[in-house]
């Protein structure tokens, strides 16, 4: 009897040990969007492997993701208005709503309880319970006489707020969700023509919207909102003809390195460098093409730039101290996105036209790994869960 009990105990211990060996954290995980197939690859950055694939997420062109604070769930924002909650560990869709006809991105609130989606059709922002994906608030981006604007540049901000820009109306709105039942909206109008995207600085203080319709950017100091929105870099392209833009630049992959902000110039083969003390231009770097993403390595020592069609086969790396180019990489046609590992030693790159996902060493620039992945676009690592604005 006693020996039988002992055997049973041994078995129990052994099986729970086995289970424990299967447990894992999620801090080194991430997802890669396969834009044409509506699927995700789940990746792991410790050994650099692909763990699995999740399907059935609809139209994922221009899709982006945010993460729950426990880094277990990803929220995917699809082009077709789909908002999908995915369990990264189980590699399964746990909730999905098609909340609009056409959407462009989203954000998760400071407290992790709300997920907001910015919509083109109908223009506005809808806010959902992060747990159940039930709608909590519907905020149409109304302007003029009965018109609704497309919404871009949606980010989270301290104070459980969401901030976004109205492409058609030229406005910035700040929504305070401290009381989810009563969203409080603060509007700033006349901020400039056609804001196309925005960023919030990593400290959550400055919201900056890029303008397509005129030169410069619109800046809102959230510590001093009463000062309103002001224009910075208003004359970076004065008197010059803009080049045609084959792909809108992105700002949400902010690049703040030390006191310098690196941003893509619209319609020019240039990266603009701004001093964040006084918001004046301190440099203008000539680059290989029209920049799309300008992203700082997490330590701020390098900035990586990819480019719009037809120069989208190239990555340029710039030294943020000397402002000189360090090197140029040719990953292949259709370099769409890059994502640094949390401490920056490696970077993941998606190359759409040749269906490849790649990893580079950011010190030697050697390619460390490569996989065939179908039309990869956005790459999102779970470490974003703990960064303001991502």
């Amino acid at each position, binding site marked *: 009897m006693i020996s039988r009990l002992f055997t049973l105990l041994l078995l129990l211990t052994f099986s729970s040990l086995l289970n424990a060996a299967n447990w894992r954290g999620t801090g080194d995980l991430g997802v890669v969007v396969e834009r044409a197939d509506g699927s995700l690859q789940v990746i792991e950055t410790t050994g650099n492997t692909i763990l699995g694939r999740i399907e059935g997420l609809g139209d994922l*062109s*221009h899709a982006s993701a945010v993460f729950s604070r426990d880094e277990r769930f990803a929220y995917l924002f699809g082009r*077709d208005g789909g908002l999908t909650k995915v369990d990264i560990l189980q590699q399964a869709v746990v909730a999905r709503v098609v909340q609009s006809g056409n959407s462009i991105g989203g954000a998760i609130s400071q407290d992790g309880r709300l997920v907001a989606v910015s919509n*083109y059709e109908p223009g506005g922002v809808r806010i959902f319970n992060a747990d159940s994906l039930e709608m909590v608030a519907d905020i149409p981006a109304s302007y003029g006489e009965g018109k609704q604007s497309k919404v871009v540049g949606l980010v989270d901000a301290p104070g459980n707020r969401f901030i976004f820009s109205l492409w058609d109306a030229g406005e910035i709105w700040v929504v305070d969700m401290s009381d989810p039942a009563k969203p409080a909206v603060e509007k700033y109008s006349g901020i400039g023509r056609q804001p196309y995207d925005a960023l919030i600085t990593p400290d959550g203080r400055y919201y900056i919207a890029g303008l397509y319709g005129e030169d410069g950017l619109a800046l809102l100091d959230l510590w001093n909102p009463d000062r309103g929105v002001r224009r910075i870099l208003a004359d970076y392209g004065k008197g010059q003809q803009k080049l045609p833009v084959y792909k809108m630049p992105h700002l949400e992959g902010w690049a703040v390195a030390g006191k310098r902000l690196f941003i893509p110039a619209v319609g020019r083969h240039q990266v603009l460098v701004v001093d964040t003390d006084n918001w004046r231009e301190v440099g203008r770097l000539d680059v290989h093409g029209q920049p799309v993403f300008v992203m700082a390595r997490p330590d701020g020592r390098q900035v990586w730039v990819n480019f719009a069609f037809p120069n989208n086969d190239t990555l340029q790396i710039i030294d943020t101290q000397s402002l000189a180019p360090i090197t140029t990489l040719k990953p292949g046609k259709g370099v769409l996105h890059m994502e640094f590992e949390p401490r920056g030693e490696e970077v993941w790159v998606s190359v759409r*036209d040749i269906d490849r996902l790649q990893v580079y060493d950011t010190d030697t620039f050697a390619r460390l790994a490569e996989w065939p992945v179908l039309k990869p676009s956005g790459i999102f690592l779970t470490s974003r869960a703990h960064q303001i604005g991502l």
Partner: protein
Amino acid sequence: MRHPVLIAASLLLLSHSLSAAGIPDSRRAELLSLLKHDCGSCHGLSLKGGLGPPLTPANLQGKPIDFLTATILYGRTGTPMPPWRPFLSNAEAAWLAERIKEGVQ
């Protein structure tokens, strides 16, 4: 003064009818990929619209092929639509306009 797109459109009226036939299959595949992924970056992967308007047959009703061809080639002033002339021949633009007009899957 007439709109440049209209002028271009009327010029194209003459040229486009003898066009599309000469485009080889491999180039057609490239063009469809360009339409899906590069036009799609503003008009949506399924062309149902994004920052740019939907390129669906329903939304393009009343817009002649030549007008669409000219828009593709020369862009549209006052909007973000760029000219694709550096990358496409007249015949290729006309072929794309026809595909969009009849609806692309």
